[in-house]
């Protein structure tokens, strides 16, 4: 791995932003907890890949970029989409397969899109989002626009040839890409040490000639700080950066997964580092928030989720007559 780029980066985030990080993480988690219930009552179908445990990455990372920056995500995309600012109503409607969903009911949980917010999927092919991310960044270079592209993917994706093609090409062309690797220690049921000959991913990415370093992915503030440094470096013309967020998913790979490959003790160890409890504990100790403040945030989030569910339930289904729409551009 390389040193994180030097330079002035603002210190600890101010109290307001720290509370916002906490709120965003809570929002992602509560949303998914409700999704589990909706899945068990078959309101939501298909694959459902939960982000619970990894919220610090989405909340910290995406709080550090601008509205004009692009984000490319994976099938584990609810947290990314929420942190990017896609309205919860549009996400929930998509999970319900409704016409008001952010992908018009054609994407579902794994394929959330919002072109207006520059959120380009929701890609269920592992590593499939990386090449287009280079192109989004290339377009910014070609138009001399100072935006960056954040590309999220997992430790499993790091093993795909596409990652290595893209790391080389991005570094070679000096593209403004932030490779955000969420190393949650598993690719489905395969542990990191069983999928990678060398398990220090940041070190390997550095071999492509880009700034690259590991980050505690259970600490939203550490994530935000690393993202701030990376974004500053990329915007300053430093070429792509690679951040390896070391994190953990508390739940199974998807709701179809019996999770037989992980030690209970290991899961408990990581849960002891719950990013929400951690930040909440710190904010409480610093007397920035108390139990009542926490409960108020929770109540507001629950109301937001309730409203999204009510709206999704009431939303019309995409008519079957429109099945073949959006295969080709509609011509006048």
């Amino acid at each position, binding site marked *: 791995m390389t040193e994180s780029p030097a330079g002035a980066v603002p210190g600890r985030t101010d109290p307001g932003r720290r509370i916002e990080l906490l709120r965003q993480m809570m929002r992602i988690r509560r949303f998914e907890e409700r999704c589990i219930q909706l899945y068990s009552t078959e309101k939501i179908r298909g694959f459902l890949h939960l982000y619970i445990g990894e919220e610090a990455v989405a909340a910290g990372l995406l709080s550090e970029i601008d509205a004009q920056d692009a984000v490319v995500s994976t099938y584990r995309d609810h947290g990314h989409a929420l942190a990017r600012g896609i309205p919860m109503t549009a996400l929930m409607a998509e999970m319900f397969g409704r016409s008001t969903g952010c992908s018009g009911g054609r*994407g579902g949980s794994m394929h959330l899109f919002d072109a207006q917010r520059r959120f380009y*999927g929701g890609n269920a092919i592992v590593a499939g989002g990386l090449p287009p991310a280079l*192109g989004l960044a290339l377009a910014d270079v070609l138009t001399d626009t100072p935006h960056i592209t954040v590309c999220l993917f997992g430790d499993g994706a790091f093993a795909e040839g596409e990652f290595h093609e893209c790391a080389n090409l991005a570094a070679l062309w000096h593209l403004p890409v932030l490779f955000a690797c969420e190393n949650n220690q598993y690719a489905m049921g395969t542990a990191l040490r069983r999928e990678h000959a060398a398990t220090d991913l940041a070190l390997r990415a550095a071999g492509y000639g880009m700034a690259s370093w590991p980050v505690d992915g259970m600490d939203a503030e550490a994530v935000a700080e690393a993202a701030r440094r990376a974004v500053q470096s990329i915007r300053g013309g430093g070429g792509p950066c690679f951040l390896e967020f070391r994190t953990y998913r508390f739940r199974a790979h998807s709701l179809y997964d019996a999770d037989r490959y992980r030690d209970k003790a290991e899961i408990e160890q990581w849960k002891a580092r719950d990013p929400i409890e951690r930040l909440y504990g710190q904010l409480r100790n610093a007397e920035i928030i108390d139990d009542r403040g926490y409960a108020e945030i929770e109540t507001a989030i629950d109301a937001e989720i309730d409203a999204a569910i009510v709206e999704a339930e009431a939303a019309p289904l995409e008519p079957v007559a429109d099945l073949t729409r959006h295969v080709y551009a509609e011509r006048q």
Partner: protein
Amino acid sequence: MTTTYRQALTDALREALDRDERVFLMGEDVGAYGGCFGVSRGLLDDYGPRRIRDTPLSESAFVGAGIGAAIAGRRPIVEIMTGNFSLLALDQILNNAATLRHMSGGQLDVPLVIRMATGAGRQLAAQHSHSLESFYAHLPGLRVLSAATVADARGMLWPALQDPDPVVIFEPIALYNSSGESRGPDTVTDIDTAEVARPGNDATVVAYGGTLHTALAAAEQLAETGVDAEVIDLRTLRPLDTATIVESVSRTHRLVTVDEGWGRVGIAAEIAAATAEHAYYDLDAPIRRVCTAEVPIPYARQLEEAALPSAGAVVVAVQEVVS
């Protein structure tokens, strides 16, 4: 104006680069080397490395990068050396380029053009000689073109770039050195409809790409024996212009399809099925397919020749359907 197929492609690239500053070209060896078939020779000097971009040997990365750039409003032309190598980018083409519009509920345009060389005829053996047009014509969300003539080599690129959907253009390797009439900068190919390349009354021969010339040569031979074959150049393999084929068969009552791809489950099979669906009662004879033998293309010249559709085989097939 007579020119080569290669020069027509170069002219088309220059016109596109001149007309629209969003257009850029990328691929393996398109810059310093001048393109592995010489199509982009000179472009790097004239347009510079921002717009003429040499890429590493990373088909998936640079094709996918073209997709991203297209989504973001650029007009990338991605060159893949040959269709065989395009399979390393098939995931990007199928799962992203062809799919993103639909999966996003219509939010994303992917105005990408992918050019690739295709076909056999130079004893390059299997991994450099396959015709994979039908693989791509199978994919909803793509527009798939094949330039069989010098005029279309020049005239297809611009409408392809205007198209809001991803377009794949196949360029038969065997044609790069051929010559023909170029229609000049302002005549564009109609990429919605097939073209009647040679009118006739006795049988319809459907071809595209390199096999258009095979079919036309066969039609000349047949004319000497008094058989007047109509030859259709498909030009667009997806969406397929079934109407032109059906109209022709309704006059000639006979159909032979010629395809350098394998016959089974291929474009020739699709044309036969579409004709059976739409013009069954117009047919006076069984449909015949003249395609590549069901083998990987061999190296030895006589084997390669034997594997490919020949004018002689087309003549025999037409004679069978008219007898």
